[in-house]
């Protein structure tokens, strides 16, 4: 009986191979495994549908902000450090982080300027802490986002962020950002300008 199963498997594999070769014109490259796609895909869209399970709070985030050394680069109060300002200050503490415009200070901190909280989750997860990217666990990222949003007055201190609540956070800049009109081939970048 076993050999029949094996034969079936071989036949299915051969068919799959054929399907792949037939469906692509050039037959170059291979199909990634679902595990490979999962491991590579770190994009979190505005709907948050790719957010992993987990949850976090501002209180947890406050601890992590010190433990994970965020303070070393971003300043103990989230401003005045060598890296961009993360927590709006009283306006006197500018980041030492030099910039072209727009500078990441106060009104332009990510919590206030981003349209979606998912942008923060995605970025902290992929890029922070600098030089140790990819070491934060989902719960830790939820907590750090909650901490930064709370400190900037966007959410309440006790709000729990998880895959359901995080995409629904009403970001202050949500309705003040415009998308460029639909792109068209061989059209001026903006009709009528100047």
């Amino acid at each position, binding site marked *: 009986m076993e050999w029949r199963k094996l034969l079936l498997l071989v036949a299915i594999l051969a068919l799959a191979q054929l399907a792949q070769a037939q469906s692509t014109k050039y037959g170059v490259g291979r*199909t990634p495994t679902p595990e490979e*796609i999962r491991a590579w895909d770190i994009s979190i869209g*505005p709907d948050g549908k790719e957010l992993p399970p987990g949850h976090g709070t501002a209180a947890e985030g406050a601890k992590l902000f010190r433990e994970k050394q965020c303070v070393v680069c971003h300043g103990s109060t989230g401003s005045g450090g060598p890296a961009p300002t993360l927590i709006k200050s009283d306006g006197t503490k500018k980041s030492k982080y030099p910039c072209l415009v727009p500078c990441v200070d106060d009104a332009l901190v990510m919590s206030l300027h981003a349209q979606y909280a998912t942008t923060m989750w995605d970025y902290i997860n992929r890029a922070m802490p600098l030089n140790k990217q990819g070491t934060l666990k989902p719960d830790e990222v939820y907590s750090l986002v909650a901490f930064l949003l709370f400190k900037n007055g966007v959410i309440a201190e006790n709000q729990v962020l998880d895959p359901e609540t995080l995409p629904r956070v009403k970001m202050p*800049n949500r309705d003040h950002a415009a998308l460029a009109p639909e792109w068209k081939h061989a059209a*001026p970048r903006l009709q009528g300008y100047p």
Partner: protein
Amino acid sequence: MKIKSSGRRKFLKNSAAIIGAAAAGIRPAGAENPPPEMDMPDLEALISYGQRSSFVKSHRVSVMERMSPDEFGMTFHVLSPIQDSVGIITPSSLHYISTHRGSYVPNIDPQEHRLMIHGMVDRPLIFSVDEIKRFPFVTRPLFLECLGNRAKASHKTVQETHGLTSCSEWTGVPLSILLNEAGVQSGAAFIVAEGAESVKGATSIPIGKAMDDCLVAYGQNGEALRPQQGFPIRLLVPGFEGMHNVKYLRRIKLVEKDYMTYNDYGHIVPDARVAALTRQIGPKSVITFPSGEQKLPGPGLYEITGLAWSGSAAIRNVEISTDGGQSWKLAELRTPSYSMAHTRFAFPWTWDGKECVIMSRCTDELGTRQPTRAESAKFFGKPDNADFRAPGADNTVFPWRIAADGSVQNGMA
């Protein structure tokens, strides 16, 4: 085996007859005109991979707002010395460098590098760099320009005012071929392209553009991409703001909407018109000679020359004004005008030795003309004063002031 320097010198002395003859063929050697220095260092290295003359010093500099490398060792924005440029190709070693808010330049082994295409496709695919090179390629010149390429009154040289643009001959596979291999599903409206560097910079690009003329490039100016330009593969999005041209391309995900990545969010603006002007570049031109901190030795004939480019089309014409914008005359295009590439213009001009302001403006094949600051201000209903910041990617006409002593200064100052 390396020839020791002293040995090489001896060898060169023994060949004095040949060298003497060669030198004599050019010019008699005299006290004011010493024989050329023949002892170039590292002859073997030079034979295997050439270097420019030790007398040529043209080099890139960091933007003044922030040094590269910065205190984290990251590269931020580095300006190309376009005052020294000739033709339209920027040497790869002098190509401007921009990273969104700074990043490390990775040293990627091309054998290990992969590109994955997934998301709203029928068949996710993964390619090695060698596999990408098996697809039909195209080679074409394209300019790149950073959104930060904005002239300020404090800038002195054209490297500072306009050095965040460069033009290379790129070789790569049309992205549409790779996307068609994967099979774009209906409803896919954007691609999210992502790099392999430490912060995995990503950006959203409309699917229409992705299927139109984007390239997955592996060649630059006849050789492999330079690491600072994305080795081993990068995305080219012709005419779009530099940020979209993702380096170290490792992943393309097809999605149903703009994903507002870190890079995307950094450029969001409240006005859709400004968003359009931010996404796409030009038409824009600038005079590279005579330009800031250069000096005309005296009245007489000069060639005013510079670069023109547009993010929508080829350059149709360039006009020059030598009277501060009161009158304009057509310049000559000295290179073919390629779509979305730099075009070199020139204008033979006799300077009468009087103070004047020179400027250039271009028109692209769609008939769009480069605006003055006043025209941009008027369009947005803003006063045209020193505080006015042309919205989006600034493509306004830029003036150089030539003083009676021949010195050239930023005309905005």
